[in-house]
Each structure stands twice: as structure tokens, then as C-alpha cells.
């Protein structure tokens, strides 16, 4: 490279190109800074809220806090009935929402003919995800609590939340099914597989990771729900536990807990936050930490399962 040998015209062109590159790079830098700022606003706000919760709540966290029933005395109050209630409701939600959601998704994706009716169902399913949760609460109050006579029970709450998260599970399952290449389906059919064999031997195992993602999202959404649970009449002060699902005598399992009255963590928190006494506010923060921990635990488990499944399958 010898700049001296270049004609003046080339030098002008080069200067122009350099100016273009410099201005382009400046814009690029500006956008990067703007993007970083947006990310930080979101992240720092969240972090600040979380830290506040930890600072307030951590001192109250103890074994007693987890094993005590609520009390009039803030320092003796615990969340036993709330976290057990949340756990039981989550079990019902999962048992109801996963089979129904996955079944509906498989039907819509693999079995249903493509016509206006399925288009209509599809639009409805997607829109259901945007319905306010209180509406599900009202529906459940009429349907589960009164019509079916399940009462203000764990079962009613679990089914309500299951309805709430069905669209999330259906949509994410359908997306997971769609990522499976057509030549895998054709390969299975060419071996003489029936549609059900294709679904059960191939589609479901290969889309487990994607389905789990939907289940995690749904469950995380469900565990934090307050409005629909209040709507169906959960208690805010409860000093007993539902019967244990596992009995000491045969058949070692019972279902009376399904019809028990209950409360859940967000309601317990709400109840404490609304009290004037500062000590109860700290209790609420501590309960919040437990709620977050339960959510993270669920997510962690699902991410682990998804990771081990995905490691094996690459298209």
C-alpha cells in the first residue's frame, strides 16, 4: 500500500468512505448504550425489589416461620398452612392442566382438519391467555364451587388455576410439536406407524423440552395468582392443615384433602401487607421470599429436565 501512488479522486473516495464508517460506528455505539440502559432499568428495578424483599424478610425466616400457623402475634405467626396450601393447589393444577393442555394441543396440531371451526378454536385459545384472571375466578365460583359442588376447596382452586394456564400450555406445546421436522413424521408413517404411534413414540418424547417450558411458564404464573383464588373464597386466616394425602393405613392414599378449605402464599402475604403493624409487613416479605424460592425451585427442576432432554435431540 502506497498512498502516494493513488490518484486524488481515489483519496477523496476513501475519505468519504471513512466518514461513512465513522458515523455508522457512532450510531451503533449510541444504540448499544440505549439498549444497555433499557436492560439496566428493567434489571435494576427487579433487583432492587428483590433485595428489599430479602432485607425485610430474611431476618424473619426460620424453621418456626415455616412450621407455625398464622397468629395474632406477628413474631409467632408462620406460613405453614399457606405453603402447604400452595403446594397442594399446584399439584392439582399440574395434574389437571398438563394432560388436558397437551391433549388439546396434539389434537389441534395433528388430528384436527384445517377448517373455519379449528381456526375459530385457535383464535379463542390464543385470546384466552389475555383474559383477566378475575374472570376465571368468577367462572370458577359459579362452575366449580356451586354447580359442581366442590366448595371453597383445594380442588376448586387447582382447577381454576388449571383453566387459567391451559392456553399457555396449549400454545407452547403446539409450538414444540411444530419444530419436529416433517421428514421425521414421514419416516415414522413410512414404517407403518399409526397416527397414535407416531404421536406417542415420536412427537411427545421429542417435544418434551418445549412442553416443559410451557408447563414452567404456566405454573410460575399460577403460583402467584391471588385474585381468582380470593374470588372462589379461599380463607385468609387458617389454623389447620388439610388431611395428608398419604395415610398410615391401606390404601395409604386419600383424597379428602382435595375438598379441604385452604389458603395460599399470595393470599397470606396480601393479608399481612394490609395490616398496619410493621412486624406483619416483615412477615409478608418473608413469605414473599418463600414464594420466590418455590417458583425458582420449580423452574430449576424444569430447566434441568429440559437441558437433559435437549442435549440428546438436535434437528
Amino acid at each position, binding site marked *: 500500500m502506497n498512498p502516494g501512488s493513488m490518484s486524488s479522486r481515489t483519496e477523496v473516495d476513501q475519505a468519504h468512505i471513512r466518514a461513512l464508517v465513522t458515523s455508522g460506528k457512532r450510531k451503533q455505539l449510541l444504540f448499544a448504550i440505549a439498549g444497555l440502559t433499557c436492560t439496566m432499568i428493567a434489571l435494576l428495578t427487579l433487583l432492587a425489589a428483590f433485595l428489599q424483599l430479602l432485607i425485610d424478610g430474611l431476618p424473619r425466616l426460620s424453621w418456626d416461620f415455616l412450621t407455625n400457623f398464622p397468629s395474632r402475634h406477628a413474631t409467632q405467626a408462620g406460613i405453614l398452612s399457606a405453603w402447604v396450601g400452595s403446594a397442594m393447589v399446584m399439584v392439582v393444577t399440574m395434574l389437571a392442566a398438563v394432560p388436558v393442555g397437551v391433549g388439546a394441543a396434539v389434537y389441534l396440531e395433528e388430528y384436527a382438519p384445517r377448517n373455519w371451526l379449528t381456526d375459530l378454536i385457535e383464535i379463542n385459545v390464543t385470546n384466552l391467555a389475555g383474559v383477566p384472571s378475575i374472570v376465571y375466578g368468577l367462572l370458577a365460583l359459579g362452575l366449580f364451587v356451586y354447580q359442581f359442588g366442590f366448595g371453597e376447596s383445594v380442588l376448586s382452586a387447582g382447577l381454576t388455576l388449571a383453566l387459567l394456564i391451559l392456553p399457555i400450555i396449549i400454545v407452547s406445546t403446539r409450538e414444540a410439536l411444530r419444530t419436529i421436522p416433517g421428514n*421425521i413424521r*414421514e*419416516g415414522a408413517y413410512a414404517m*407403518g406407524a399409526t397416527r397414535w404411534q407416531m404421536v406417542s413414540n415420536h412427537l411427545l418424547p421429542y417435544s418434551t423440552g418445549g412442553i416443559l417450558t410451557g408447563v414452567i411458564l404456566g405454573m410460575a404464573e399460577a403460583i402467584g395468582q391471588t385474585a381468582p383464588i380470593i374470588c372462589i373464597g379461599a380463607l385468609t386466616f387458617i389454623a389447620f392443615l388439610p388431611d395428608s394425602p398419604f395415610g398410615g393405613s391401606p390404601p395409604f392414599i386419600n383424597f379428602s384433602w382435595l375438598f379441604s378449605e385452604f389458603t395460599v402464599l399470595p393470599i397470606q402475604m396480601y393479608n399481612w401487607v394490609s395490616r398496619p403493624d410493621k412486624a406483619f409487613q416483615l412477615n409478608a416479605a418473608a413469605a414473599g421470599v418463600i414464594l420466590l424460592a418455590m417458583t425458582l425451585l420449580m423452574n430449576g427442576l424444569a430447566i434441568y429436565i429440559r437441558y437433559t432432554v435437549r442435549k440428546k435431540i438436535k434437528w
Partner: protein
Amino acid sequence: MVTETSSPVFPGGATEPVVPPVAKAQVHDLNFFYGELRALKGISIPIYKHLVTALIGPSGCGKSTFLRCFNRMHDLYPNTRYDGRIVLMPDNVNILHREVDPIEVRMRIGMVFQKPNPFPKSIFENVAYGLRVRGIRNRAVLTDKVEEALRGAALWDEVKDRLAELAFNLSGGQQQRLCIARALATDPEILLFDEPTSALDPIATASIEELIADLRSKVTILIVTHNMQQAARVSDYTAYMYLGELIEFDRTQTIFVKPKKKQTEDYITGRFG
């Protein structure tokens, strides 16, 4: 059942003894429609038993569409319609008939696809899949059949120590031979190949071609290829198709050395297509 056998066959070359070909299937006036579009127009050819029949022609000529009629693959998609007959010997059943279940047809006629499509399962489970679909649960039978099929696909020596490994860990050529083994495991009467080497490198292609030539003794083969040299190398009979029509069907030697139609000659010599 064999119709218009103009000349005897010399599989693999002119020096071998004359073998009168026996039809494994007979296609009668086959038309196929995607909605209103008539993709196949009145095709009639015999498919000879234990011989390789190649389908050649330019892109979009309907050769893959024709192949996929044999295992009723089109049934998986809406707005498709068959018209005409494909009669499978020796039981004389028209596999396109409405009352014949496509699954039953696929149980008898296997297929190997363009791009290797092993299932994301172990090598063993890939080959055993067809057997499992057919209700075989006995471990010893499965093990024997899997070994036999892998030997048949010239893959056994390469994978015998890693049957539990995921099939995706194999190379492209190995994956395609695995797919051949998967199809062979259920002893199909006809094996369909849809451009089986188009996604493979030349070495893997050569091994698949060699395999196809060997498989002839066990199974009737129908292969779609866009590669004329491949058709010349592996097949005994060749059908040249153009725009959904069958232009010429004859012994491969005749098609490549002395085609009867000018159109075929133009395609073979590269003046067209």
C-alpha cells in the same frame, strides 16, 4: 400377469444368463391429483421382482410423486386423489383401493428418504422401530433382526459396539444406511428410494449404490434419482418421465444406449433437462 416383456433381462450385464422377469407390481393407468392439478398422467408400467427400477426425469416431472403412491404417502396430506391401480403380486391387491388401509400398505412396502431421517433414538431402537410397530416384544427376536438388518445395510461392523448410542452421532452416509437397515428390518416386499444419495458426499454415495445393487437379491427396488449415471449404474429397468407422463420404459441398457424416443435421447445426452 406379466405383460409385454419385449426383451429378457441381463441383471448386471449382458454376460449373465437370461432371466425372464416376474412382475412384483403392475401399475395400471395411474393418475394422481393435488387438488385440481393432475400431477401424474396415465402411467402404466410393471415393477419387476428382485430387480432395480429407476425413475428419472427433470425436476417436477412427477417421479417422486409417483414413488410416493406406492406407500400411500399422499394420504397424509389433504386434497390429494389417486385414480388408477397399482396391483401388488402375488396376491393381486390394488394398494390404491379405498378399502385398503395405507398402514397395511406401508407394512409391506418400505421407504428410504432423500435426507437421512433417523429418529432421535438409539441406533438399536431405530432399526427395531418397525418391528415394535408390528408388535414384536421378544428381546431375542429383536436383537437378531436388528443385527440381520444392520448386516444387510453393510453397517453392522461399524456400529456393533455402539448400538445404544444416539443415531445422530453417525455420519451422513451411516445415517442413510441406518435408514436402509430400519426399512430392511421388517422384510419389505418393495423398497422405495427417493433420491437417497442427494444429501451425501461421493464416497457415501458409492457405498449406498453398492448396497442397492446387493439388496436386489432380497427385495424389489424402486429408486428415484436425478443423477443419470446413478440410474445407469444401479438399475435394471429405467422409466423416463416428463411433466407427469411416462415417456419411455425399458431395460436400462436400452434406455441409455438406444432409446426409442427422441425426447428420452435428448434428456440422456444432456441436450435437455
